[in-house]
């Protein structure tokens, strides 16, 4: 199992959600929240594939966060 911790001040929660949905068919995912992080646990029987999916998912979540205006935009939207 690989655990990815996306810091809330760097990554948008919606971007992490969207990335996980995009990669849903490539591994098993479990999402949870910690006070400072969005946490994604992913599992695949093939370890190399699991590592590769984790890497690509991270890139995708980062790209989406940037595209959506960065993590600061979520805080501004809530305010």
């Amino acid at each position, binding site marked *: 199992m690989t655990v990815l911790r996306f810091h809330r001040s760097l990554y948008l929660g919606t971007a992490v959600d969207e990335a996980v949905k995009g990669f849903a068919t490539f591994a098993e995912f479990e999402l949870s929240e910690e006070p400072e992080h969005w946490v994604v646990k992913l599992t695949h029987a093939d370890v190399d594939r699991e590592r590769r999916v984790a890497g690509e998912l*991270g890139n995708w979540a*980062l790209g989406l966060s940037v595209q959506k205006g960065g993590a600061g935009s979520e805080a501004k939207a809530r305010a």
Partner: protein
Amino acid sequence: MSQLVPLRGRDTRSQAFFRFRHVGEKVVITNMEGQFLLLSRPEFDLYATGKVEAGSALHGLLSERNFLRSDGQGAGDAARTADTVSRLQSRKRFLHQGPNLHIVVVTLRCNETCVYCHASRANMDATHTDLTPALAEQTVDKILQSTSPDVTIEFQGGEPLVNFPVVKHIIEYALEKNRTVGKKLEFTMVSNLSLMDEEKLAYLLQHKVQICTSIDGPEHIHDKQRRLPGLSAHRAATTWIKRINDAYREMGLDDTLYHVEALLTTTAETLPNWKAVVDTYVDLGCRALFLRPVDPFGFADKTGHRVEYPRMQYLEFYRQAVDYMLELNRQGIQILERFAAIFLTKILGGEDPNFLDIRNPCGAGIGQIAYNYDGKIFTCDEGRMLHEMGDSTFLIGEVGNTSYRDLMGHETVRALTIASNLDAQPDCVNCAYNPYCGVCPVHNHKTQGSIFGRMRESSLCAVHKGIQDYLFGKLGEGDPHVLETFRRWTTVRDRSHFVQACST
């Protein structure tokens, strides 16, 4: 088909990719590979409008530096492309290596109280902030997993001499482990020197540990900013600087190369004292002075009203100080300014000196890692400083629990690498100084609430741009003495004495 316009050959008068910036009466143009030219305004107008006459001197200059499109048919085109690729590779040689700078905080305790302390020091009785020998070994194990062939372990604090037994333990354990790992290993210690004694110095000299300290200018400024109970912090530091430099000479080392490195932190109090600061460094026998502005980390966040200043004032201070240093060089006194040397090495030397705070992308995670006394690992020293202020955004693991692979691929490291990539950063992507510059996403995060930052409002960008404006202004003036001094400042000499032998 007959109505199609016939294809024209490529116009070799038209511009290849370039960026530009007005500097005084000149215009500096740069390209992707970091070549530059300083053009007069009429020359720039000709270039920008594609009207440079083939065969003219200007055409030759532009062509030589790769500022004109090639027709794609010349015999030398392939060689030129290979040269360009080679220059780009040379500038980015630090990529694919891995972190080479490993900062180890052996304690947060410090016997001095600095008004701007970036490290958020702890009192001398806070022994719980001491790194333990067991955790120190785990830290060294992690450091030696780096993929970089060059590894520097930098002891920081607090004051590292407060926890000297662990400093010694790390050195001996790392030397032992490195017998099989085979890194090009170096040790550096950043100390205020006030707890130095002959026994500690003998150990540090014997184990080839490079020593760095802080000198905030003349005694009255230094002692006001760096309080040492009952003593003068300035006298303590300068006494040992002289003693260590003498020891290097006694060991037969070249004193132009081997000497204590001292760093300045510029506060509001420093600004009018630029001449006294330079004179202090020259009197101490220092060959380099790093005119660093104060950072917004640690205690400086709270004492900002006393120590901070508008960056325009800093740049005036910088220009006055470096003008004076250039005058001293003209008189035969060799002293260089470190910011200028870093930028000039990139501008004139075509090399990147791998200064981690001014490179593209920055060194956070992929060039440096900071290890705290409690085993926590951060992307960089600045990230660790923010953690001590209550913001753990840049925490990426713990020495006992996080694998090297997980550190390098950490989501936060990825984000910082993207955020400090100047070729995808608004403003930076169009800036003439793009090939030579670097941003600090942690600074952006602290001052602007986003790792990407907004460069138009960034105090760091103002400093970097202002310094490069000054340097290109000087290059444009063409004073032979200044140009010769600048060339000398770009010369990087290896301090091979500090490299540890990896086998016995």
